[in-house]
């Protein structure tokens, strides 16, 4: 079972890295989502795997490690906030620049100066 989880973590990481290396905002954000999956699973796995031993007192003989679970729980919620902020930034970039490329070339930089939010306000 350990091999399954380890390989899943590795594959999720690889997919995440490949997507973050794309040139548009949307796949990069998807890539970061995959990286979040991988990191959360990894952190969870640091408590080692166990079946039928949820850390609810009195419900089983042994208990899995509750501390990584508590940490990952908040991490999952925070990663939603992070994804949402980046999505909003991606939308803002797209609406202002007219494209969703992540790396600006020289042409965009000069054009961006003219029609940034400051210039428009």
């Amino acid at each position, binding site marked *: *079972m*350990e*091999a*399954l*989880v*380890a390989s899943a*973590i*590795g*594959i999720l990481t*690889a*997919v995440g*890295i*490949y*997507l973050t*290396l*794309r*040139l*548009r905002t*949307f*796949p*990069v*954000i998807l890539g970061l*989502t995959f990286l979040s999956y*991988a990191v*959360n*699973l*990894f952190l*969870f*796995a*640091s408590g*080692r*795997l*166990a*079946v039928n031993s*949820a*850390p*609810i*007192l009195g419900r089983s003989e042994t*208990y*899995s490690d*509750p*501390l990584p679970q*508590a940490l990952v*729980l*908040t991490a999952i*919620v*925070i990663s*939603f*906030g992070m*994804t*949402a902020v980046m999505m*909003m930034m*991606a*939308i803002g970039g*797209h*609406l*202002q620049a007219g494209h969703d490329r*992540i*790396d600006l070339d020289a042409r965009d930089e000069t054009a961006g100066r003219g029609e940034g*939010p400051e210039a428009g306000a």
Partner: protein
Amino acid sequence: MTPAFIVALPFLGAILPALAIRFGRNACALATGAVSLLALILLIQAAPAVLRGEVVQARIDWLPALGLNATFFLDGLGLLFAGLILGIGLLIILYARFYLAKSDPMGQFFTYLLLFQGAMLGIVLSDNILLLLVFWELTSLSSFLLIGYWKHLPEGRQGARMALAVTGGGGLAMIAGMLILGNIAGSYDLTVILTQKEAIQASDWYLPALILILLGAFTKSAQFPFHFWLPHAMAAPTPVSAYLHSATMVKAGIFLMARMWPVLAGTPEWFWIVSTAGLVTMVMAAKIAFFKDDLKALLAFSTVSHLGLITMLLGFGTKAAATVAVFHIINHATFKAALFMTAGIVDHEAHTRDLRRLGGLRTLMPVTFGIALLASLSMAGIPPLNGFLSKELMLEEAAHTVWLTPWAMGLLATIGAGFSVAYSFRFLAHGFLGPVRDDYPHRPHDPGPGLWAAPALLAALVVAIGLAPMLTAAWLVDVAAGAVTGAPVAVKISHWHGLYAPALWMSLAAVGGGLALLGAYPRLRALWDGVPRPEAKPMFDAVVAGLARLARGGAEGLHDGGFGRAVVLAVLAIAAAGLWAFLGGTHAAGTRVGLPTDAVVVAVWAVMLVAALAVPILHRNRVVALILTGVTGLLIAPLFMLFSAPDLALTQLSVEVVTILLMLLALHFLPKETPVESPAWRRLRDAGVAVIAGLGVGGLAWAMLTREAAFAPISAFHLAQSKPGAGGTNAVNTIIVDFRGYDTFGEIIVLGIAALVIFALAEALLRSPAVTSRLAAWPRARESGDRHPMMLVVATRLLLPMAMMVGVYIYLRGHNLPGGGFVAGLVFAIAYLMQYMASGYDWTHARQRFDHHVLIGWGVLVSILAGVGAWAFGLPFLTSGFEYVNLWPLEEFELATAAIFDLGVFLCVLGAVLLALASLSRLALRTGEQINRRAYDTEETP
């Protein structure tokens, strides 16, 4: 605690001038002066004890385990310097009030000045060397602000930058030196270090520590070869030059050498490095000063020269020489500050400081001339003024010091003194004597007493110390020199040492030589101008430009602004470091017994990975990619479930739903396709990098999972204490709301801030005309017939109360069973979102009686209240309490304050999720989305 208060006062008072400037410039100066005066009164109150030989101490423990304590002490040396800093500070405040123009922001100036004063006091009163270093860097920073005060002058900015680079760089070296010293002595307290002379001087690390500390001292006190920054710092307003660059900051290096004198001095290394640097600086700077036309530049090089003199005396390593050094510190502070202020007055009145354009001011500005006369004669070392007394003593010490040959030191010191006489007389002769001219840029006359009172007082001190040194200064020299040398000192200062004292003849030679130099000035000047000499500024600029090129080359090579390159390099570097560590160590295969493979897990695993691996292949169609991502994320939930983490499964499930909804909404404003842009080789490279990262992380996970933890997990405590300590049986929830409540508190605040950022971004976008026009022309998506299908509308409305019931249930049971505020907040949010989706934003929003911002605010507030409530019982923030209640006919149940905290979490999560999605929806309204007024679509709606 007096020393600590003295240091704290200027920092606390720094806000006053910034506020008082609203009530006028006098109020501003008075407020600043009151702060300094109060500190001075505290100092004077403590002075009698110090003069009796006591050391006044103050101690505030901060991190005792690391040796980081805020400890202060006031001894003779500290008293001398603190007195100089505060006394001259007061005079400077008076002078600056009348010196600064109406257009100069005075509040800012005095705030900077007080910050500097506090930092300086911190240096001279700190007992802990780490604390001293902090104050040391603070003086560099605050002097940067003061030098560059006239921001419109390029010289001011460049001078400030050069001063910061040189003194800040020296400060960095000193940090290393001080750490070594603290390591040798086994303590970071100066009072302990100062008793460890033998251990420190016997250590192999003595020389490195010495050199590093001296680098800090030499750069700060402008000793050769770091002398060049001080003249460039003269672009500062004159009060700054008088305060920082003659009386206080440049003496910080001297102070440090004096402070460390008991443990560092007395070795051949100390003697050679310190006395040579001092001697070279003294002679060379005196020579340069003679040829300077700018009054302030002349005084700046003269200051460098006198600092060299003091450094040289400290370098001799004898008690007598150190005593003379202390005496000269007092004398130099009095006459040089007076001279700088005089130069400022001349500049202020004649609108020039150029000696070539001045002369004849004696009759035009008699008061200023009187002050300048006394101070510059003292600087030249003419009896009976105080400069004469310390210079005689210095020459006497130099005459008896063997440096290379028995006579070289005496000769060079006399030459330095001769140049000193020459530039002092030139300052007088070319500035004040001679005929009155008719081509001054501005006809000068004496200013009001506001400007000349401060230098006049200093000139009076020059005379008083000169005439009656034993009465006015000897007692201070005694305690200060006693603190430097660590032995009682009873100094005898007199004007006449007898015909057989070499100092008398050296002094006479210096005065004669100086006058001869001044007489030959025109010819010497022609020679000086004719011979090329190295200029420090171009060299410094070249070095800085070279370093900047190097840094830019390195930085741009690694990070060209492109996101991809940064990620690739980071992944490869981390993988290489991991591989290097792996190959370098020895390791055996993991021995932890794994779990038997379960068919359900294999099935989930297989589907999840197929979905995940399909994303890179199919990602150009963004909707498909999003769905596949959602499938992957949702399938992680059963994995959590199977591996005994029901709380995580619930959270993952609900967060995933919300995330996918958010991304679907966002995709409305983004292209639906990702075009093929990168060439095949690049995609292949990216795949390679991704595989490396995957192998690394996967391998790490495998290694971790097949081994036991190196240390017993600390969660045994949480499991054991969950019920008795926090009153809950769900250990995960008790950790979140109780054991690590502070973490959770921080996290909900972060979540709230993230939602507010999203709201603010949307707001900013909607204010930009470019964006709104782009939104108005947004291509309409192909619409399905039903925008708000009746079946969906009815179903979601029926579901809303049920979903809320489930949410409440999850919230209530969270302490004992899987659930809690996080999941409940998400469940509520999903129930609301379904209303948005089914009935439209406007319809839903109109029926919602609360604001999302308010929800976040209440969430944070409720959790704060839950934390503060503990104070009422005398317990620390966020301590929880619980009680079991029997209420007929219910079963026994539990009331816990942690539930209130969890309510805050719930509200914050609900508000944040709704605000994030609502902000996106507001953008959609601008795309011409039609607003439905009715509950759901009817025939009339187009």
